[in-house]
């Protein structure tokens, strides 16, 4: 009965209810759109970072993340690779030999991480090959080939087929310089990543790392990093747990741990979403309070009559609260529907921000954003509307139960 009365009361003042419903719906729409936009951005940022830089998981010697020294290689890399080969969740795996060094030309020098990769395995994990924008990928025959980022090449003022010298320390600590020929230039869209890395063939790099003073200490392979790409990001945790259990002597990290900026980015986005939702709620609260106060004041005499004939305060209070919630319950699906429609329409083409945001690429953000709406977002927004309506209803409801029936009935 209370539900029926509350529901019908909404439609007594149709224009007023429509206005408030429409404004809530518009707010929800805007909010859904903004949140889906930031979700889309986060999602693509993370997927890009996984694909281009971190893969899902990486295995290292525990010392390696502190100090990228040659001696921190994975001594039982074979076992790790074997074990990964048996996991169905794993899509691709690549071993890497890594050393800190410097790449220089006659015109400049740059401190980099020299990454030795297995040309074929690497391309299945990071798509390095597909990120080459000039020249080509490693060839079969030549040993001393290097792939630089386009930015590094610009800094060193070198082009394709030019020579660069890479300098690093081998296992003995002896400074070694090796000449490489530039075969390709890559660009991932992430400036920090691009500037910090050069790629060479793993076998070549490895041969220069071997100790000449104590040849007996040389391992068969210098594998410093094993990067693992999964079929599905959801499978990350179980695979990580299994690896940690089998290889207690190694450090297994996922992309979040590897890339502090992803976590930072995610928490920033979460914060800005919270701020958006709060602003949205505040803006709506005033509109709703105003509408409901009008509705209560307009019905002062009727409310007085209801209390006179025996409708108690909790019921009157509930009636006003329900009315407000109904307004929200009509408006929220409307706004969410519009939000869904907008996201659906933008699904194929996305929103091209290249005109507005020149700097985005530097941080690994795509300039085309594909908004995403998740169930979680829908729920968040629905809850926000519910809470807003509930909060907004309290004052008018309080106003309603504070009235004294005798006075209300005498009002003309």
């Amino acid at each position, binding site marked *: *009965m209370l539900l*029926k*009365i509350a529901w*019908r*009361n909404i439609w*007594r003042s149709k224009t007023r209810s429509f206005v408030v419903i429409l404004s809530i719906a518009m707010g929800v729409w805007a909010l859904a759109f903004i949140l889906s936009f930031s979700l889309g951005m986060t999602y693509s940022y993370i997927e890009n970072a996984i694909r281009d830089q971190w893969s899902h998981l990486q295995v290292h010697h525990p010392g390696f993340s502190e100090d990228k020294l040659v001696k921190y290689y994975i001594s039982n890399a074979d076992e790790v690779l074997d074990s990964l080969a048996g996991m169905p969740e794993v899509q691709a795996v690549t071993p890497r030999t890594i050393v800190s060094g410097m790449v220089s030309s006659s015109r400049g020098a740059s401190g980099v991480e020299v990454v030795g990769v297995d040309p074929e395995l690497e391309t299945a994990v990071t798509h390095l090959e597909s990120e080459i924008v000039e020249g080509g990928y490693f060839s079969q025959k030549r040993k001393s080939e290097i792939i630089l980022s386009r930015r590094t090449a610009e800094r060193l003022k070198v082009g394709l087929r030019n020579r660069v010298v890479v300098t690093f320390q081998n296992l003995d600590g002896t400074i070694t310089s090796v000449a490489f020929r530039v075969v390709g230039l890559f660009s991932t869209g992430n400036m920090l990543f691009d500037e910090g890395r050069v790629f060479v063939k793993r076998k070549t790099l490895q041969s220069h790392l071997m100790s000449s003073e104590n040849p007996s200490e040389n391992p068969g392979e210098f594998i410093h990093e094993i990067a693992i790409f999964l079929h599905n990001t959801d499978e990350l945790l179980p695979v990580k747990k299994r690896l940690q259990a089998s290889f207690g002597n190694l450090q297994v990290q996922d992309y979040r741990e590897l890339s502090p900026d992803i976590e930072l980015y995610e928490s920033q986005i979460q914060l800005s979403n919270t701020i958006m939702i709060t602003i949205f709620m505040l803006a709506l609260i005033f509109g709703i309070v105003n509408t409901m106060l009008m509705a209560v004041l307009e019905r002062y*005499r*009727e409310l007085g*009559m*209801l*209390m*006179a*004939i*025996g*409708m*108690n*305060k909790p*019921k009157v209070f509930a009636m006003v609260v329900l009315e407000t919630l109904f307004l929200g319950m009509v408006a929220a699906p409307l706004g969410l529907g519009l939000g869904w429609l907008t996201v659906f329409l933008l699904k194929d083409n996305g929103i091209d921000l290249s005109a507005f945001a020149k700097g985005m690429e530097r941080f690994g953000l795509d300039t085309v954003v594909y908004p995403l709406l998740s169930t979680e977002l829908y729920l968040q927004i629905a809850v926000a509307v519910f809470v807003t309506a509930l909060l907004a209803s309290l004052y008018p409801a309080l106003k309603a139960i504070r009235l004294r*029936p*005798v006075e209300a*009935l*005498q009002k003309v």
Partner: protein
Amino acid sequence: MPIIEAHGLTKTYNPDKVPVHALRGVDLTVEKGEFTAIIGPSGSGKTTLLNIIGGLDRPTEGKIRVDGIDLSTLTDNQLIDFRQKNIGFVFQSYNLIPVLNVAENTEFVMLLQKRPKPERERRVEELLKAVGLEDKMDKRPSELSGGQQQRVAVARALAPKPSFILADEPTANLDSKSAFNLLDIMEQLNREEGITFIFSTHDSRVIERARRVLSLVDGEIAKDERR
């Protein structure tokens, strides 16, 4: 036992500024089955007295017992429940809930009391027949005339079988035909079912129908006639 006993009721509005003595010591007893009119010039305190009897307002001084219960012992919230259970109200206007139809309005208080559905339905039918509106069950109040609305209000007030019905100028907004019609129904319910009515009025033609007439003048009972 009388259903209403009042002793030395006074009511003073604005006691600090410009005091208005709406009631100046009213003693009153109402027995079951009465059909009583409270009359008096405008401002004589009729509404004030009815509000105090109905537990809508509290006297400044004096005692009021309804069904043996001293109303001053009840809190505001308990008074709401007390009114719901014991008293039927008919006001001058704005009696009905506009978003409910006639049948729903009639059963409203019974719903608040959580009476079972079959009982409610039976009672609604019975009462709407008694007030001659059985063919208007599905109509909203706005589709009824003023007199019809007042008849629904009487039906609504009667539905939970209260000990008495208070009506403050129930005919004030009605033309004389509708007023007589409403009076007929009230009289009939009083005569045939023993329902106690206490109503205030200005209307001399209505006064003639009452069996007891209390005349208020300046907040005091000037005359108490029984006929």
